[in-house]
């Protein structure tokens, strides 16, 4: 057994009907991350997507929103936790809460705007109303209910089972038996400190850009820690002089895999001040030492780029790029989330975020650079969506589904013991160890038995 196999864990157990597809194949046979083999079947197939519903979206931890999006009491935004619609709000006492966005009576969506500031929620259908802490205040026509027909105390809004906040990022899970957010994120928190805590606080600026792409959510998701596509997928920007002409330009760094499928990389930029300190202005560099451990501060100081995936579908992109051919390079922080609608359609969320203490000038420059290069109109990002759609379109047919994708780059590369951070690190950030770890967690999650709550009707 190779080193990598042990690291990824989860050797296939005895064939189980739980992971068997209708055609008789076992998921663990067609997805073999330790060997760098992933079947094309898992991307566009409605059967696999149906299996993902409870096993992944019913019980993993998901990013819902950032605290800076709901600064005032009564602020509410409508989002998803997994694929279920939720209200994320700050209640009258200032507590951040998340509820299924659905009335307890007939299931009507309660909040039908993207954002609001409310004192209570009143269902448009029959007028049931709820306080911001989720308690049912009144049902319609209460005097028409007989004794015992309306148990108001038991009819509060359905809360996200567990909610957790780290650096203002609000995560939720529908699984009451899930590990705590701290346990779930584990060592990822050490790296999130560098991205979200380097100068104090980060804030999300305004609303996300939202759009829907005809692609499997997994093709979008697994692109974010992939560095070696940049030279080829964004070739037009090499031609325009906005990216280096050396195909290896983005390989100078480390990839890191962590427990629970969290993955990331840190990459060094050109030996020039503009490409140090995560692309932040020099004035903010002294903050690293104030907010981070010396080891974290050194990583922030000596790297320009980073991408990380908080498994399964939430990502940071910390980049340095010019907004156009004549503009100077600027640091940008972009947060991404993919919510599947069907096996082959995905809703994309993209936020611009900034260090709270950044100067107004840098804030403006960083924002303009972001919107010109990332998001659906960004001259970098546009080409990625083309790839995700085309990969999906080519994965639909029966013949394609008999074949695998190739995720073997760096399969036999030994870990880099000199990397000072937690996790298993590899030198040279061109590699597919992050992909393999993501799909290993996917397989673990798809193979883990469901608790009986999925079969139970929760009243």
């Amino acid at each position, binding site marked *: 057994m190779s080193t990598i196999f042990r690291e990824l864990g989860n050797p296939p157990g005895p064939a189980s009907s739980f992971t068997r597809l209708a055609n008789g194949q076992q998921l663990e046979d067609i997805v073999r991350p330790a060997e760098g083999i992933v079947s094309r079947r898992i991307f566009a197939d409605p059967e696999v997507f149906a299996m993902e519903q409870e096993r992944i979206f019913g019980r993993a931890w998901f990013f819902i929103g950032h605290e800076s999006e709901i600064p005032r009491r009564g602020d509410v935004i409508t989002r998803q936790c997994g694929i279920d619609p939720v209200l994320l709000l700050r209640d009258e006492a200032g507590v951040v809460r998340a509820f299924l966005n659905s009335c307890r009576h007939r299931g009507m969506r309660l909040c*039908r*705007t*993207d*954002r*609001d500031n409310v004192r209570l929620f009143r269902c448009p259908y029959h007028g049931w109303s709820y306080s911001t802490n989720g308690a049912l205040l009144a049902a319609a026509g209460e005097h028409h209910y007989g004794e015992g027909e309306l148990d108001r105390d038991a009819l509060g809004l359905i809360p996200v089972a567990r909610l957790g906040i780290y650096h203002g990022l609000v995560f939720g899970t529908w699984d009451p038996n899930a590990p705590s957010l701290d346990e779930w994120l584990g060592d990822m928190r050490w790296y999130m400190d560098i991205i979200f805590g380097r100068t104090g606080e980060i804030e999300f*600026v*305004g*609303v*996300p*850009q*939202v*759009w*829907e*792409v*005809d692609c499997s959510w997994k093709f979008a998701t697994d692109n974010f820690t992939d560095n070696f596509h940049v030279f080829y*997928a964004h*070739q*037009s*920007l*090499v*031609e*325009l002089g*906005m990216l280096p002409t050396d195909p290896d330009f983005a390989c100078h760094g480390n990839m890191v895999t962590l427990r629970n499928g969290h993955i990331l990389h840190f990459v060094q930029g050109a030996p020039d001040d503009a490409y140090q300190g995560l692309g932040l202005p020099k004035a903010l560099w002294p903050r690293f030492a104030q907010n981070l451990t010396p080891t974290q501060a050194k990583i922030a100081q000596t790297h320009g780029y980073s991408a990380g995936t908080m498994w399964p579908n939430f990502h940071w992109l910390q980049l340095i790029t010019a*907004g*156009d*051919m*004549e*503009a100077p390079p600027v640091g940008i922080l972009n947060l991404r989330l993919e919510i599947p609608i069907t096996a082959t359609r995905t*809703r994309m969320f993209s936020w*611009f975020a900034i260090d709270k203490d950044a100067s107004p000038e840098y804030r403006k420059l960083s*924002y*303009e650079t972001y*919107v*010109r290069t990332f*998001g*659906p*109109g960004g*001259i970098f*990002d*546009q*080409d990625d*969506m*083309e*790839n995700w*759609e085309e990969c999906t379109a080519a994965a639909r047919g029966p013949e394609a589904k008999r074949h695998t994708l190739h995720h073997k780059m760096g399969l036999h590369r030994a870990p880099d013991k000199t990397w000072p951070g937690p996790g298993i690190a590899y030198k040279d950030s061109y590699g597919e160890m992050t992909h393999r770890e993501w799909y290993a967690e996917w397989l673990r999650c798809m193979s883990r038995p469901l608790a009986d709550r999925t079969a139970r009707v929760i009243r």
Partner: protein
Amino acid sequence: MSAAVATQELELSRPGTALYGEIVEFLYREADLLDSNRFSDWLALFAEDIHYIMPVRSTQFLSGGAGFQEVSFFDDNFQSLRTRVRRLETDSAWAETPPSRTRHFVSNVLAAPAGGAGEYAITLNFIVTRSRGDQGYQLFTGRREDTLRREASGQLRIARRRILVDQTVITATNLSIFF
């Protein structure tokens, strides 16, 4: 209001007058350049101080306004628009290589004198269809607020463009086309 401006406003508000006709023809020719993939010629229609912006829209109650946000899908100046055009002229802007087939329809054109001398405030409705590869149509609809400026040479140029889309969730692969 001076008599000259009042006359101009009256003329602009009447389809069929020479000035209105000139503006509408300008808009049709612009759309034709885009649909013919003549992006450099299209770029030449913009003033050097162009601000080309497409704000993100949110769903909200009428009392809260139309829902347009400070965050945008596009926030371009002449320099960044030029980069977008140059990019489309490479052979490797994969989102548009091979190119989308677009059709830009403009209608409901209203014009009025704008703040600056020789400037006209134009509002219109647009439909943009995009056919890409073997996929179905991607459809964009909305309102556009343009400022056209007559330069010393007599040439009209686009000095400001605000693209107000109807969708809060863009149902399209990306926004690699122009509006």
